[in-house]
């Protein structure tokens, strides 16, 4: 269920503010289905990385307690207009997605 990712990379000085919005269910594996009483299996993003011009600058590991449809705000120094910001994630079911945006 890899829905499209939204990335915004806004430059001020040489600092780029990166905002990422990901469509993901982020199921913890702790919740019970109210009808069946069964645990809903976990399904969440485990690893995420952010690259600047193809070089990883931030590597994150997550548990299931990041909110559904995760939002992420980050800051990277040493960027200029036209640079490429890329985001890549992989979830607990092995699904993955990547997206790219241009610094402006």
């Amino acid at each position: 269920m890899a829905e499209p990712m939204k990335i915004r990379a806004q430059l001020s000085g040489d600092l780029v503010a990166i905002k990422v919005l990901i469509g993901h269910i982020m199921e913890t594996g702790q919740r019970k289905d109210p009808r069946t009483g069964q645990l809903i299996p976990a399904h969440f993003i485990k690893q995420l990385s952010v690259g600047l011009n193809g070089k990883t600058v931030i590597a994150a590991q997550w548990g299931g307690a990041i909110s559904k449809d995760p939002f992420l705000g980050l800051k990277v120094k040493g960027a200029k207009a036209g640079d490429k910001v890329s985001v890549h994630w992989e979830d607990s079911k092995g699904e993955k997605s990547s997206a790219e945006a241009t610094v402006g």
Partner: protein
Amino acid sequence: MNELNELRRTLLKGGCAAGLVAFAASAGLLLPGRALAAEWNKSAFEAKNVADALKGLGASGVADSRDILIKATDIAENGAVIPVEVTSQIADTQSIAILADKNPLPLLAVFEFVDGAQGYVSTRIKMGQTSNVRVVVKAGGKYYSATKEIKVTIGGCGG
């Protein structure tokens, strides 16, 4: 003859795909992350209390720090979506870990920074009940932490 032809087709296809991958790799087209060395820290993320989570992270001798700023609401009406903003003003911040002390699995996330990435993270977290949010920063090989209590009126972890 037909069989041979099919074999040839398959080989051509296979060879082509392999060639493309090699090309993509050499041109640096592969996005970062695929080759991320670090494996998901199972022992830390599946720890059921803060002490075990910290142990899983390898964080020992954690010192309180006023240079870690946690910006979040005091009272969260919806425990499923709590915006949290963390800034580490400690020089050479290498990583930021975010924990919620009373969540069933306290460790929420770990962010590692290299090459210009600032010790700053803004995200949204789930909390099952009122608890301290704990931020653990690794800088210069040492660990620092700060906490902030968030009151949760409706939990976001249970069903």
